[in-house]
């Protein structure tokens, strides 16, 4: 069953075609990789899907059961609330807020009390706040961050910042999670830990995941299907094995050593 369908998506910046005529389909429950050399347009695809940019042309459809809804050009917060969450290639945490606050803010979508009741902190308000805290801590536990809930995000080590960003994305309870180079800058042990976590949250939250990653061993290990982007266009699409042996991909991008990996 389809969850996301991108059709003929194009985005140009001035004369530069960052994304041109990209079409892709992601089914519910899949873990799909999006790879390609630097500057291929991967992050731009994410920015288009999440509404950070509006496309020059093309459509993006998010499915809820059989029902498809176009989301291209909508505001990021609308798209997030429709069930698409993301992380950023260059981490964008609320650096001067605590770990707990980072997650709590992203739970905003599920908050039940109304604007006026937060001025007086009514009993209903208090139990709702408690629920938010409890659920945030539950979420942090998955990433082993519950012990650091009161630390400022900026003071976390790099790897944990990446984890926190994923936790924050999950706090909005998305159907589709977009991860932009989550393993960038991690050592092999950390990368292994990350792939474990991705596996775990995928099951736990019944997620569909689209993943940009440069670490080929990670991509080949966990992705079920891969799209390859080069100069803004999709040049290949298939299972890891198919991608590994695809001539075009090899010449355009992977190179000799990646095949050995």
């Amino acid at each position, binding site marked *: 069953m389809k969850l996301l369908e991108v059709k003929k998506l194009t985005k140009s910046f001035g004369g530069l075609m960052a994304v041109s005529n990209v079409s892709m389909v992601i089914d519910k429950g899949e873990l799909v990789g999006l790879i390609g050399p630097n500057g291929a347009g991967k*992050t731009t695809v994410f*920015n288009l899907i999440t509404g*950070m*940019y509006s496309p020059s042309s093309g459509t993006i459809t998010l499915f809820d059961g059989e029902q498809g809804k176009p989301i291209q050009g909508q505001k990021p917060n609308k798209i997030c609330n429709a069930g698409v969450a993301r992380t*950023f290639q260059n981490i964008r945490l609320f650096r001067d807020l605590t770990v707990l606050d980072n997650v709590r803010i992203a739970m905003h979508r599920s908050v039940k009390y109304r604007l006026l009741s937060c001025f007086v902190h009514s009993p209903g308000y208090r139990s709702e706040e408690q629920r938010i805290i409890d659920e945030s801590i539950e979420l942090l536990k998955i990433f082993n961050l519950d012990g650091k809930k009161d630390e400022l995000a900026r003071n976390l080590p790099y790897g944990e910042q990446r984890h926190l960003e994923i936790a924050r994305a999950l706090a909005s309870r998305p159907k589709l999670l977009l991860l932009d180079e989550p393993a960038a800058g991690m050592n092999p042990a950390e990368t292994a830990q990350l792939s474990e976590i991705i596996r775990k949250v995928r099951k736990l939250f019944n997620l569909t995941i689209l993943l940009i990653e440069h670490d080929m061993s990670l991509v080949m290990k966990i992705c079920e299907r891969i799209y390859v982007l080069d100069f803004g266009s999709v040049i290949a699409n298939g299972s890891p094995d198919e991608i590994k042996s695809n001539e075009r991909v090899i010449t355009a991008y992977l190179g000799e050593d990646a095949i050995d990996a």
Partner: protein
Amino acid sequence: MDQFVQQIINGISLGSIYALIALGYTMVYGIIKLINFAHCDVYMLGAYIGYFCMTILHLDVIPSLLIAMMLCTVVGVLIEKIAYKPLRNATRIAVLITAIGVSLFLEYGTMYFVSAQVRTFPPRIVKSMSAGIKLGNINVTYMQLMIVGVTVLLMVLLQFTVKKTRIGKAMRAVSLDVDAAELMGINVDTTISFTFALGSALAGAAGVLVGLYYNSINPLMGMLPGLKAFVAAVFGGIGIIPGAMIGGYFIGMVETFVSGYGYSMYRDAVVFAILILILIIKPAGLLGRNVREKV
């Protein structure tokens, strides 16, 4: 019809002043993305320096103008070095608050030394300047001719500096991309100081001219014209030098016409309304291009 032409002449004179001040805002903003609130006070200082040159030193208009420009240059560079440079990597809001602080400091520091009293220029000079040429019912004073003449001359010099000289090229490079400019071996600090120097010199000239034109100066005289000149810079597209000139003349015209046709009480409000409209309709200004932040 005569009145219409007269208004246009008055508008051009006023617009020249706004354009001179707006250039300083726009150059500084273009290069370090800062609304230099203190700029309007450099203009005020220019007026006072001109005033003291003419009253105490008994100098003529042109020498006073040159001295004012020189001293204002020094002040502008000092402001940059002392207050803004240490904040090069601070948040925008911190720099903006500092700029407001510097502005208040200059205004009330001046007020402390010269008192809040409104001063007028020596009658001999004012008289000679307010004479003029009469064409039917239309009156063009020497003062107006001088304002326009000085402004055009300074603008030509500025364009030459920015377009043709080495330091002008450095200015343009820094305003495009500070880091890249630095990598290309441009001395960014010098370039920024030079930008402040240029802007302050123009503001100093504007100060003397306005002081003479309205024949009234006080320590807070910079606030309102400063804001309007800023509106002019935004109107033309902030960071763009020709934009500031166009904006200056436009605001000058609008203001003159609004007061000329009997709504002088609302002339400031109209300028601010223009600001808000332009910010909503085309925040990048007349000559600017909209860019969205890169994610």
